[in-house]
């Protein structure tokens, strides 16, 4: 007997602590079993990768191995830019490590204002609002803009943050078939004429890397009296003459009412934002719960964002290198015989489509063991139940790295029987 008295020597089994029918965690049994079955097959867990060291925008150490990064959304390679890092360090020294508060109360510092000024300059808009993440920008904008009895019309392949923005709000939600102008037109035509409507689109859809026919879709939305929000998270910095996104490339600057974006991709830090020319845009700050009821970004983060955004305004050479890399990779993978998400190279995402989870994980693991990291994606995140290996390209990938990537894909594809 121990000194603490009459207690069991060993803990009772977990199952006995909560009856299964009352255990709220029981609903995850299916997920736990599926993951366990995958782990039991001896593969590396794709959702437990740790970057032990990060050497540059394109190189890290994973499991002690030098690894080329091809799945990070670090499109413009700004994370190690000396000016960006200097801005962050200076803000850390001058303003401390955090804000301890909401944007609405004590959480707005000099550099939050500077980041919003940089966004207004970058996008050429009268308004810019910074949120704590890109997810919260969509959550906040959609749930706040569209009220009871009004409609959100969204693409079926929309990002989770758009779906969750719909769930958080009280509007009626209508979904149309991915990138179908005709389907959008038909559904808008069936809605009450006088009701407020917001059509939510994305410039680049992140799973397959395909681009929206925004010009046609925005025309249809306007015809039915709807306002338009475009999420340009995966196009900032390299689409359009000023890098503003697909909407700029398609000549829609006067027609898209709200543009949502993120700092966690091309900008190279964390945070989200919405820009707009609407004269009443500032009112969002007074009504938007995901803006008000959360802490603002740390000063160092908004300082790095501001510095990075200003550099992206003139990053013409980087843009050209990014597109060169993307086209080389797309053409190379296609020539090797891989099935890709898009026929042509439409964005800085190249998705390799695979048969099933086993094949996807097998080739993913072979790539990782050979020093290449890509994203693996599976339903429900992916459209039409597909299993994908997603490559996101960086302007800082060297031609030698892109060639090494193609060699590794060729070897892994053959080793797993994915290609001949």
């Amino acid at each position, binding site marked *: 007997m121990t000194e603490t008295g009459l207690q069991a020597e060993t803990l009772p089994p977990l199952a006995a602590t909560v009856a299964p029918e009352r255990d709220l965690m029981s609903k995850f049994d299916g997920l736990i079993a599926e993951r366990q079955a995958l782990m039991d097959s001896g593969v590396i867990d794709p959702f437990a990768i740790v970057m032990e060291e990060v050497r540059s925008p394109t190189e890290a150490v994973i499991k002690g191995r030098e690894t080329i990064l091809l799945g990070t959304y670090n499109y413009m390679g700004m994370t190690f830019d000396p000016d960006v890092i200097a801005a962050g360090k200076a803000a850390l020294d001058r303003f401390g490590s955090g804000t301890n508060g909401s944007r609405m109360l004590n959480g707005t510092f000099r550099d939050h204002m500077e980041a919003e000024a940089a966004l207004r300059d970058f996008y050429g808009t009268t308004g810019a609002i910074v949120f704590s993440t890109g997810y919260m920008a969509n959550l906040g904008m959609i749930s706040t803009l569209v009220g009871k009895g009004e409609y959100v019309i969204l693409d079926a392949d929309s990002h989770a943050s758009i779906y969750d923005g719909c769930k958080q709000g009280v509007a009626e939600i*209508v979904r149309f078939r991915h990138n179908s102008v005709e389907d959008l037109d038909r559904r808008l035509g069936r809605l009450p004429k006088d009701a407020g409507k917001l059509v939510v689109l994305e410039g680049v859809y992140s799973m397959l890397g395909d681009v929206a026919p925004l010009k046609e879709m925005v025309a249809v939305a306007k015809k039915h009296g709807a306002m338009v929000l475009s999420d340009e998270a995966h196009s900032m910095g390299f689409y359009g003459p000023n890098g503003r996104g697909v909407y700029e490339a398609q000549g829609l600057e006067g027609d898209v009412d709200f543009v949502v974006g993120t700092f966690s991709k091309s900008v190279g830090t964390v945070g989200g934002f919405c820009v707009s020319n609407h004269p009443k845009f500032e009112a969002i700050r007074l009504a938007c719960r995901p803006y008000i009821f959360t802490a603002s970004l740390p000063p160092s983060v908004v300082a790095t964002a501001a510095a990075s955004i200003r550099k992206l305004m003139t990053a013409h050479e980087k843009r050209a290198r990014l597109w060169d890399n993307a086209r080389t990779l797309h053409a190379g993978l296609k020539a090797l015989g891989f099935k890709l998400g898009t026929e042509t190279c439409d964005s800085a995402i190249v998705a390799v489509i695979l048969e099933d989870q086993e094949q996807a994980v097998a080739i993913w693991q072979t790539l990782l063991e050979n020093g290449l990291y890509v994203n693996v994606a599976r339903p429900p995140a992916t459209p039409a139940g597909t299993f994908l290996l997603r490559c996101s390209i960086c302007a800082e990938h060297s031609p030698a790295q892109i060639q090494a990537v193609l060699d590794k894909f060729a070897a892994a594809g053959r080793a797993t029987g994915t290609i001949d």
Partner: protein
Amino acid sequence: MSDRQTIFDTVAAQIEPFNKKGVDLTDATTFQGDLEWDSLTVMDFVAAIEDEFDIVITMNMQAEIETIGQLVDAVAKLKDD
């Protein structure tokens, strides 16, 4: 034949291509439990029903519809509006 029966028959006809297990279709048949449809199948099917009847079934409404009978009633109501 009543209006409701016509709607039921049309809905049943739209279900058939997705009825891989040959489940008997009644008012009480559930999409998730009996037909074992995943969210992608539901989405394709709802789009087909919307186009067939020239209506919009919002996602808010879809969340409330679990059986064929509930869908038929929803379509009947939407057609009247």
